């Protein structure tokens, strides 16, 4: 009897031990994957920016890059802030679409200014469950600018979750701006969607 009980205890301990080891999250996203994702994104963006044509023509292609490389659905939801929960499913879909167009236009224009720059990817900082923060330096004429890329795999694949330029998070800034755009339109979501599409 005692031997049987002891075996059960032993078996229990082994099972518990295995479960505990299995429960600790293994780092699924490794530095190499994060870094190469950022490098690939940077190359695609710079190739697009350096190609001929104005920012308006490049916006659709930039949107495609963003859809492939970044967690756009979650980014759109975050940028909407509290307003997201006040939208019905149809508005959410249309907002996300309009927001993606808006983002692509804004960044197509912004990146135009960086066409002559070099981007050097540097160290990777652990951002806990937010992912990995890949540091890079954008240099051309004058001071190099620190650009950090927050990379996460919680969306199912390796994606960019935010871009931080000299400490300024693009997502935090976008959320403030969208909130302001909504407030200045009397909190009318349809008008907001229209305004985003018109950019």
């Amino acid at each position, binding site marked *: 009897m005692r031997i049987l009980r002891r075996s059960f205890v032993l078996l229990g301990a082994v099972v518990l031990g295995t479960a505990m080891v299995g429960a600790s999250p293994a780092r699924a996203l490794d530095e190499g994957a994060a870094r190469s994702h950022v490098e690939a994104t940077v190359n695609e963006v710079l190739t697009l920016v350096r190609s001929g044509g104005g920012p308006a023509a490049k916006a659709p292609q930039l949107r495609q890059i963003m859809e492939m490389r970044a967690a756009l659905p979650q980014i759109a939801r975050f940028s909407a802030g509290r307003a997201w929960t006040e939208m019905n499913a149809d508005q959410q879909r249309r907002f996300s679409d309009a927001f993606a167009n808006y983002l692509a236009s804004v960044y197509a224009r912004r990146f135009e200014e960086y066409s002559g720059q070099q981007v050097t990817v540097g160290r990777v900082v652990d951002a806990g469950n937010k992912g990995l923060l890949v540091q890079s330096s954008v240099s051309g004429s004058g001071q190099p600018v620190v650009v*950090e890329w927050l990379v996460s795999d919680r969306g199912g694949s390796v994606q960019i*979750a935010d871009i931080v330029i000299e400490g*300024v998070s693009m997502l*935090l800034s976008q959320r403030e701006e969208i*909130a302001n755009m909504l407030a200045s339109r009397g909190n009318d979501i349809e008008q907001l969607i229209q*305004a985003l599409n018109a950019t």
Partner: protein
Amino acid sequence: MLPRVTALLLVAALAGCATAPAEEGALIADPYENANRKVHAFNKGLDRGIINPASKVYGAVTPTTFKFLIGNALSHLMLPGLFANHLLQGDATEAAETLGRFALNTVYGAGGFLDPATEFGLKYRQTDFGITLGEWGVAEGVYLELPVIGPSTTRHVAGRVVDIAFQPASWLGGGSAEALNYGIRTLEIVDFRDRYRPVIDDVLYASEDSYVTARTTYIQNRRRLAAGETVVEELPDIFEQ
């Protein structure tokens, strides 16, 4: 001297009192938004009318070498203040680096017009008295936009008043020193506008509401400067339900 001290005490007192809770989701409290927006409109008009055109002329007309020398000289004048602030913040390494930089560039950098110190690893370590106040536990305060100077916080305003006292140009007395002071300030503004043109143009002219863009850009950048690095805890979590 006395008016300056009074102003300093006044602003320091203000820094202590003017704290209001931020709106939910907002980065910083902005109880003076109406007044701030008026100042912002004024600043933007000033930029469109005078500062931007002047900086474009400066940028086009000034040979790159001159801009390099001027840029170096302007930063060099900030070093005594930086040294004092790093000391006050208890950052011995940064203080030592700043002192070394000042000495090296003064002697071997033609009085600060050249910058051999950077190659020796003695880089320019940005800080100011507003950051020092933060290290001492003074709260950020609320958002303010100042004429000409632009975005600020109550704490940063108090800091600026003290920092002006640290600049060598302030140590000279007399009429010609005042003129020199104004000359240096003007050059600083025009050089800064030219140097950071893409960023400033982006903030002021590329968004629907430049007031909000300026505020969020300034506050986030300021907090990074205070922390010394990007604070992971303050980054957004887009996967949070």
